Every structure is written in structure tokens, then in C-alpha cells.
């Protein structure tokens, strides 16, 4: 699951970590939108490199690389698919143009993965849940999110324990044909689900006992305040969006095929 490794949060602080998650999310959204605008290789390359300063400032190079590595499979798939599809349907005049297009599509995917990765790598779950609480998202959803995140390591450990317990009764997970292997996961899934249900009941009891639902207006121990850095990022994002729109509509982008030798088709 190395794609997910890149999304997991590591406890570190940096100026990027301290930015308001809502502003960071705006930045990610802008990247997303601008990336969608372009099907040309060069602007996407620019977008790709544009995010790197964030990665370095935040000190999350290793995890970021890991998330990119995890995406390699899908990136290759997108490339191959576009190339093959384009080849058979002759949507592009030259081989070079098709190549560029396929590369651009793969790069676009990579840019999207990259920007989300940077977001999740530099935003702690509690910071994120705080941002959710302070936006108009109803508290039930934020609570569900936070609790889910909180219990992920617990459930992972429990799944491991259940696997051990069943292996200790002779269950062999690696043997057998595909169908048998799937069936072999039933003794793992059922205890996991039953345990999750029991756990939810206990959690609900505890929540009720701590005055859940006492008021529709919950207060909060923390409040997110936008600071200079946040406003700067917000301004930059909006400017970048504007720039992206402008370039897309009014600037002709040089095609890579001008630099590449002609392809034999």
C-alpha cells in the first residue's frame, strides 16, 4: 500500500504544516482545476515542479517520493491506455503528438496525486478535523471522520490479531485457488465486523455519557485563525488560477513535438 504511505501524516512542524488547512485545500483545488485545463505537456510540467518547493519547505521529501512511486503503476497504465487508444483511433496527426499527449495525461495524474499528497502530508488529522469543524460541515460528519482516523491503527492491529488467532487454528491464508483464498478471509472479516459493531456500541455509550447532543451549538477548544502566511497562500492560489485561465485561453503553448525527431508513423 505504498500509495497510502505517502498520504500518512508524520508528526513534524514546518511553516507549511502550520498553514490553515482550508487555505491549503484551496491551493489543492486550484492545482486540480488548472491541471484539468491543460492537455499540453509543458504547462503540466511547470505545475509539477511548482509544487516541489512546498515539499522541501515541509521536509516531507521521503514520503512524497514514496507516494509518487506508489502511483507509478497507474501512471504507466494511463500512458499506455492513452497511447494505444490514440494509435488505433488516429486522434492525433503525428506519432510525436500522440506521445506528447499520452505523456501529458500521465503527468496530469501525477500532478493531482502530488498535490493531494502534499496536502495530506502536511496536515495533521486533528488540524484537518478542526478545519472541518469550523467550516459548515455538520459536526456529526467531522466526528465520524476524526473517530475513523483515530481508530485506523486500532483496527489494523485488531485485524492482525484476528489473523493470528485464526492462523493458530490452522487457517492457511496463502494456500488454495483464488476462490478458496477469498473464502478463507471470512473468518477474518466476521470477527472484525462484529468487533467493530461492539466497539461502536461502547463508543456510543461513552459519548452519551459525556453529554453528546446537549446542544446544537458546540463550542471548540481550539479555533483556527488565518495568519499572514495563509493570506499569502490564498492570494497566490487565486492569482495562479487566474494565470492558468489566461494561459489556457490566450497563450499558444509550444508543442514538444517541435523538439522531438519525427516518429515513423
Amino acid at each position, binding site marked *: 500500500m505504498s500509495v497510502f504511505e505517502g498520504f500518512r501524516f508524520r508528526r513534524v512542524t514546518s511553516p507549511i504544516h502550520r498553514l490553515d488547512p482550508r487555505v491549503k485545500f484551496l491551493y489543492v483545488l486550484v492545482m486540480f482545476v488548472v491541471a484539468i485545463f491543460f492537455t499540453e505537456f509543458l504547462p503540466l510540467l511547470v505545475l509539477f515542479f511548482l509544487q516541489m518547493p512546498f515539499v522541501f519547505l515541509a521536509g516531507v521529501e521521503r514520503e512524497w517520493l514514496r507516494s509518487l512511486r506508489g502511483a507509478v503503476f497507474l501512471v504507466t497504465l494511463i500512458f499506455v491506455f492513452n497511447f494505444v487508444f490514440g494509435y488505433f483511433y488516429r486522434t492525433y496527426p503525428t506519432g510525436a503528438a500522440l506521445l506528447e499527449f499520452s505523456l501529458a495525461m500521465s503527468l496530469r495524474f501525477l500532478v493531482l496525486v502530488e498535490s493531494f499528497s502534499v496536502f495530506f502530508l502536511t496536515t495533521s488529522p486533528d488540524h484537518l478535523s478542526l478545519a472541518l469543524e469550523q467550516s459548515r460541515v455538520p459536526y456529526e460528519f467531522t466526528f465520524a471522520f476524526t473517530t475513523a482516523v483515530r481508530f485506523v491503527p486500532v483496527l489494523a492491529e*485488531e485485524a492482525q*490479531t*484476528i489473523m*493470528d*488467532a*485464526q*492462523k*493458530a*487454528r*490452522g*487457517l*492457511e491464508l496463502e494456500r488454495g485457488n483464488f476462490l478458496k483464498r477469498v473464502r478463507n478471509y*471470512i*473468518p477474518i472479516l*466476521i*470477527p472484525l465486523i*462484529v*468487533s467493530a459493531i*461492539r466497539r461502536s456500541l461502547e463508543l456510543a455509550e461513552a459519548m452519551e455519557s459525556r453529554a453528546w447532543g446537549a446542544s446544537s451549538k458546540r463550542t471548540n477548544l481550539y479555533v483556527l485563525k488565518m495568519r499572514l502566511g495563509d493570506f499569502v497562500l490564498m492570494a497566490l492560489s487565486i492569482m495562479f488560477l487566474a494565470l492558468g485561465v489566461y494561459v489556457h485561453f490566450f497563450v499558444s503553448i509550444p508543442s514538444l513535438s517541435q523538439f522531438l525527431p519525427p516518429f515513423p508513423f
Partner: protein
Amino acid sequence: MIEVRDVYFTYPTGVEALKGVSLTIGDGEFVAVMGQNGAGKTTLVKHFNGLLKPARGEVLVDGVSTRDMSVAKLARKVGFVFQNPDHQLFCETVEEEIAFGLRNFGFEAATVEKRVDWALNLLDLTEYRKTSPFMLSGGERKRVALASVLAWDPKAVILDEPTIGQDHRQKENLRQFIVQLNGQGKTVVVVTHDVEFVAECNPRVVLMSEGKIVAEGEAKKTLTDTTLTLAASIVPPQITQIFLGLTDFGLPIDVIDVSEAKRILLDYFEGMKR
């Protein structure tokens, strides 16, 4: 039957759970592995059925290294009853649950039936044969888990914290059951921090602390040695605690049993009268 030779083990998270542990458990022995939560007890016993393989050192079960055997093969010899029965139960009936292990090990249908009957009877669960395990109480579910492991008659049984969440009477029943099992020749290993429980059974005690074995020996000797109990962060048995404050009267401290305590005190008072 189980030999642990200088075993080191570190979890993927980086925690070094075992730092050079060596231990031998003979056929038919009754051993209690004790220590604080986090001392490495469960980590150690998970090596006995191959769930964990040592990073350094070796674990031999009946002379064969666990590295050369699959968990399934080892489980046939070494049964493991986990702390939380809900981590095992998934079948529609208690009967099915007990048959699960038997089927995994390739027992024939006729044998499975017989063994299921036997296990149900052994743990007093015959009335629940067709009941869903999820409908049973906590104590009953524990018995089902135990029955499902004993069904295939492993040579050794490991019980991980069997007394958690049990009331006094349930613990007493369990204690008697375990002693009976051992009496029938099974090697029994109990991982527990319940000192009273161990004091009542008087098995061989292995005390662990911070990934190492700090002491080994008869329960009576190990649990009453305050330097050892301190090192392993465990509390001495209730009776021992009483005697720890009476040493200046010349009374012994290696007492863990109430009847023995009574006898010693009565003798002392007799002596005083004269």
C-alpha cells in the same frame, strides 16, 4: 518440548520486544509467564506456535526449528487460546466453531463429530451446541474458544491472559480446569499478570521484564522474592504481602497459600504460649 535459544525479536515498529531470551519447557510442564504489560510475555509465547519467528536465535518445538515449519503445522501441536474470544468466533453455531480447527487440520468427518462432542462435554457446552456463539455471555464465549482449541488435542496449550474480565468464581473454575488439563499430561503455558491465580496453581514461574527473563522457578520462591517482583513490576500475592511485614518476628516470607499461612501462625502462637 519447547526450547527457546537466545531469541531476539523486534517488531516492525522498531520496538525491541525480546532481548536474548532462553527457556526450556519440558513435556507436561505447567508454566506461568508473568510480568507487566509490555514485558514481552505475549511476544515470547507467539514464538511457540510460529506466529512470530525470531530475528536472532532459535525456537525449537519437539526438536524442529519453528523457522522450518508453517504456523498451521505448529498449531497442530501447540494450541493458542487468545485473550479475546471475539477475535476467533465467527461461525453460526458453537458446533461449527469447534469443528473449524479440526477441519483445517484435515480430520475426517466422523472424527470431527466425535471430537466436537468430546470438546462440548469437556467445557460444559453441550446445551449450546446449536446456539450462535454471539448469543452467549462473555464467560461462555471464552469456553467456546477454549473448546475449539482443545478439540484437536494439541500437545501443548498456551493461554494468553485467560483471567481478564472474569469474576472470582469463574477464575476458580478455570484454575481447576487448567490444573486438570495439566494433570492429563498436557503442557500448559499461561501468560498472565494475575498473581493470585498463579499463587493458587503453584506452577513454574517465568518472570519477564523489558524483553528479558529476570527469574525462573517455583511460584513459591519467585513470587515471594521482593527483589524479583520489584524488577518485574508485579505485586506479590496477598498472603505474601501479609508476611512481608512480619519478618522481624522471625516468620518466613515464602508463603502464598492461606492454609499454610494459618498453620505457620498457629504454630507461632503455640510457640509463644510456651
